[in-house]
């Protein structure tokens, strides 16, 4: 908008009697046409490829075990991200605490779970029974293998790993808030908990959300690792089918379509979440009017700043 106004102002300065001819970007058009042709050729070679059975793709796209696999992928992603976020919050706060024991525990947790392969962690949890045949509290115990289903093992493995990464993301977010904010809140008599919940975290969220969105999308695909512990998420379901009918490419395309759809939905969700935590485009309707008032302020400011030059 600023640029537009500036350009118009420039055009006005040159005067109406001069005809302006904008530069034609001929080279740009040539490059665009070549690139477009390449894309069309690639698309054609796929669509018209006699080795791809498009009918099968259409069929398996909504096949029951694929749908169930997609559902499990979504469940694992959402739950692991939620648990990871909570763990991340807890360990980030522990890591910044002045208590050396809490601090040490948080450091060790982050060090261990970021430092060992995710695959190893998943296999470990699935095989927990070798270490503890029965788990429980006091005299109440259960057989580990009945609790540690593939889904539960996958969830624990993914969440604990995610928590370590989220702890660092949350910590960076909290450190990114101006210390003056905490100081002002302290001076007003807020308790440390009130300051964290009402001042620091809401502002840190703006820094936390974008990398968390990245994590969620990465998580979506990392869930495919759980095939090693035979949890039936999306990719595993596809593998089970193509192991029988050898439509390997077709089923990989089906799975990829689903991953893309879920990623798209997640990206849109992230966009709205970012808007929610951005003041001035706020959540309570008040934000929108504030945005409008900012626009009027800007235009008023422009008028004010152009007025004197107009006179001069």
């Amino acid at each position: 908008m600023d640029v537009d106004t500036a350009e118009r102002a420039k055009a006005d300065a040159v005067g109406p009697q001069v005809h302006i001819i904008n530069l034609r970007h001929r080279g740009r058009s040539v490059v665009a046409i070549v690139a477009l042709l390449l894309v069309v050729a690639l698309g054609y070679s796929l669509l018209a490829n006699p080795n791809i059975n498009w009918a099968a793709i259409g069929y398996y796209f909504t096949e029951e075990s694929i749908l169930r696999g997609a559902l499990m992928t979504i469940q694992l992603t959402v739950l692991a991200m939620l648990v990871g976020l909570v763990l991340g919050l807890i360990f980030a706060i522990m890591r910044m605490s002045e208590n050396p024991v809490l601090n040490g525990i948080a450091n060790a947790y982050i060090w261990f779970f970021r430092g060992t392969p995710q695959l190893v962690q998943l296999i470990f949890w699935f095989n927990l029974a070798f270490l503890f045949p029965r788990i429980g509290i006091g005299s109440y115990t259960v057989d580990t293998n009945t609790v540690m289903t593939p889904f539960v093992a996958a969830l624990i493995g993914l969440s604990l790993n995610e928590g370590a990464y989220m702890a660092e993301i949350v910590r960076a977010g909290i450190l990114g808030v101006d210390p003056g904010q905490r100081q002002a809140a302290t001076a007003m008599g807020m308790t440390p908990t009130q300051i964290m919940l009402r001042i620091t975290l809401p502002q840190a969220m703006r820094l936390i959300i974008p990398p968390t969105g990245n994590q969620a999308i990465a998580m979506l695909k990392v869930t495919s690792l759980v095939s090693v512990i035979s949890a039936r998420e999306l990719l595993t379901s596809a593998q089970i089918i193509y192991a029988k009918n050898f439509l390997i490419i077709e089923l990989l395309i089906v799975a990829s379509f689903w991953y893309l759809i879920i990623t798209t939905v997640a990206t849109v969700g992230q966009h709205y979440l970012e808007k929610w935590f951005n003041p001035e485009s706020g959540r309570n309707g008040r934000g929108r009017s504030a945005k409008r008032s900012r626009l009027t302020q800007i235009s008023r400011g422009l008028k004010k700043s152009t007025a004197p030059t107009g006179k001069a």
Partner: protein
Amino acid sequence: MNVPTWMVEAQGVRKNYGDLEVLKGIDLQIPPGSVTCLLGPSGSGKSTFLRCINHLEKIDGGRLTVDGQWMGYRLLGNKAYELTPRQQAHQRADIGMVFQQFNLFPHLTVLENVALAPRIVHKIAREASEIRARELLARVGLHDKTGSYPRQLSGGQQQRAAIARALACKPKLMLFDEPTSALDPELVGEVLDVMRDLASGGMTMIVVTHEMTFAREVADTIVFMEDGRVVETGPPDQIFGSAHSERTRRFLTRVL
């Protein structure tokens, strides 16, 4: 009962940052209803002393009381017990502070900025706290900015909003740390006007400032600090007219 004579009383207050001794024994007595301006060169410890008064910083020696209460401690017999963070917060709740960088909360509207502490610190109902916030904002000339966010305001407006926010908890003492230093020259006046108004209303104020005209006109007492010590204390006429200390005179000729 025994009514404390001094709003703020500092006796031999010391503060170190590591090996650096920033306050080297500050003695100061500030009566209720007075305006005290703290002057001194950069690095002399003015901000640090101000932050010790509301216990944003813990002092390393001496004693500091506000309205008769030891800041950060509770006195029982001949022992001073350190307060918990919650108790410290409670102690700070009726001391207002205004910062050079305003430090308004950017994720809240101006109205929410002012109404927040009364609501969550003093447990006043939302409606009552917002009515009072509107009154205070009107008093500092911001009645039409209640729904705006801080970054939509000019520096002068932000600082006036910050003053309203500090006043919302009905403080018995207001601390100002260079409230106009971050402002464009043409915006300084509107903030000083609000402060002048506050002073004439009888508020006890301690102001760190480089605005000599304001200090001369509004202050009851000028305190000149250098290198972690109070060099000279006195009424403005005396300090500006015939300071005893050579260092004070040198500082004043440099800034005036």
